[in-house]
């Protein structure tokens, strides 16, 4: 546990001593801020129209603002996760510091979990920037906080899985750009895989659509904690870290 924390702290520090962390945080906050502003503006407009026309159209801030926003964060996250994970191992391999880590009296798994955890914390900090925006909803509206909390849990779980995949990809190259590009491609594919289910109903299409991370986020966005989706995310995390461990082990045979 102590060793995991040593690695994690060092990784966090290297995010924050370089501009990387600040740029990611600011860009994420700006992009989300734009989405938030847009969707709130739309909601307010709808509400005013509904009042003027005297319609009693049921409006729900959780359903109409929070849910699409959570889905937006999810997609923006897909774009940012490769930037968080690409340096984790690629950089250590390039600069040779991987030799320090692998010849120190700590296990590979401790290194991997420490690094993965630091990336998850980094992502959580980015999510925190979005919470600041959502606080306005509580100031001027009356949303339910429980579905929102579950939505964030879902975001974290899903990001945990993608970060595990990114960590794995980062162990396979010493080039950060390659690690980032491949991770980005994989994230994007895992997002669009679900589209096949729109026109095809065969088993393979169902399998592909099951692998899509977005379909597993829907219930979280609704504020429903569905064990099926949570288990999917946990499985992705486990598999990603498992393959990372195998990849690190294979370095001992090849490099």
């Amino acid at each position, binding site marked *: 546990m102590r060793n995991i924390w040593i690695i994690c702290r060092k990784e966090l520090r*290297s995010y924050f001593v370089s501009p990387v962390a600040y740029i990611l945080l600011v860009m994420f906050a700006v992009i989300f801020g734009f989405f938030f502003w847009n969707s709130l503006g739309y909601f307010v407009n709808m509400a005013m129209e509904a009042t003027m026309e005297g319609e009693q159209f049921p409006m729900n801030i959780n359903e109409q603002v929070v849910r699409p926003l959570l889905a937006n964060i999810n997609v923006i996250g897909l774009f940012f996760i490769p930037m968080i994970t690409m340096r984790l191992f690629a950089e250590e391999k390039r*600069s040779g*510091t991987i*030799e320090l880590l692998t010849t*120190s*009296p700590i296990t590979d798994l401790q290194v991997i979990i420490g690094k993965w955890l630091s990336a998850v914390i980094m992502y959580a900090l980015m999510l925190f920037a979005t919470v600041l925006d959502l606080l306005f909803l509580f100031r001027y509206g009356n949303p339910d906080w429980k579905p929102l909390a579950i939505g964030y849990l879902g975001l974290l779980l899903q990001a945990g899985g993608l970060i595990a995949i990114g960590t794995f990809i980062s162990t396979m190259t010493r080039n950060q750009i390659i690690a980032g590009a491949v991770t980005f491609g994989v994230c994007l594919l895992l997002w669009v895989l679900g589209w096949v289910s729109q026109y095809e109903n065969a088993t393979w299409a169902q399998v592909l659509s099951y692998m899509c991370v977005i379909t597993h986020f829907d219930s979280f966005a609704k504020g429903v904690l569905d064990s099926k989706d949570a288990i999917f995310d946990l499985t992705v995390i486990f598999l990603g870290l498992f393959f990372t461990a195998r990849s690190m082990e294979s370095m*001992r045979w090849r490099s």
Partner: protein
Amino acid sequence: MITVNGLTKRYARTTAVDQISFEVKQGQIVGFLGPNGAGKTTTMRMLTCFLTPTSGTATVAGFDILEQPLEVKKRIGYLPETPPVYPEMRIGEYLSFVGQLKGLSGSDLRARVDYACERCAVADVRNKIIGKLSKGYRQRVGLAQAIIHNPDVLILDEPTAGLDPKQINETRDLIKSLAGDHTIILSTHILPEVSQTCEQVIIINKGKIVATDSVSNLQQRARSGESVLVEVAGRIGSLDPAAVQRKLEQIAGVSRVIPKADGQKRVIFEVEATKAVRGDVARAVVESGWDLNELRPTALSLEEIFLQLTGSEAPAEMEAVAAGGANQ
């Protein structure tokens, strides 16, 4: 302290290290010598548990590198060819991170960081960012990182590569001063380094050990053939160097006569022979009516021994190395 037994590392097509075995006693400094690509780094990486051997094994301080890697790692300080430093960190920060990795904490950690800084002469710059340091300082930080947990064994991969002559001397002195507390294996392709720093030398070529001996023994061994320097002067008037050379070449056992300097009055030759020939040389010179000004045995340098041991393709490599060494 270190026992290596039939260690082998094979890659898809090549065998980097082939069945090597050796032993290092406590407190020794052992030089691991060989041309580039001989398998030095691979061997060191296997000893530090960075690479898994294809077959064979080794024990460090009584622990097997395959069975108890964590125990081995606790007892080894390792400086890879490029010092494993994080350029964005400050020296103090970095050393304390490495200390924690090696299991130190609290006041113990602080004391060891201070000690390592002091010992490797980086105490005055410990708040500087590593990325802005010169190569020499980085190397010292690398050494400090290796000794931080007071390991029984130090494994140093080309610790003086890329340093300027002054830094090389400083680093060598530092390594020698560490020898009392630690058993040290250092690899190098620079020969004077071995004769200056090490007690024991292991010469490795193409993945195989070609010699294991003490430095003085190796020099002794190479001297079984003889190499003598002869200065000859003419008694009256001028002297014909070619005649002298012919005369020397005729002596039984002489394999090569190399002119070193010649002038009107005196000439110097280096005579290489397969047996003791000093008496014969002296007689030949005097009987020809010349003066024998000087006659002394020259020790074969480690360089020549190295070339003898590593075979024919080594010379080009060594020249490149020597040139590289001079440039550094």
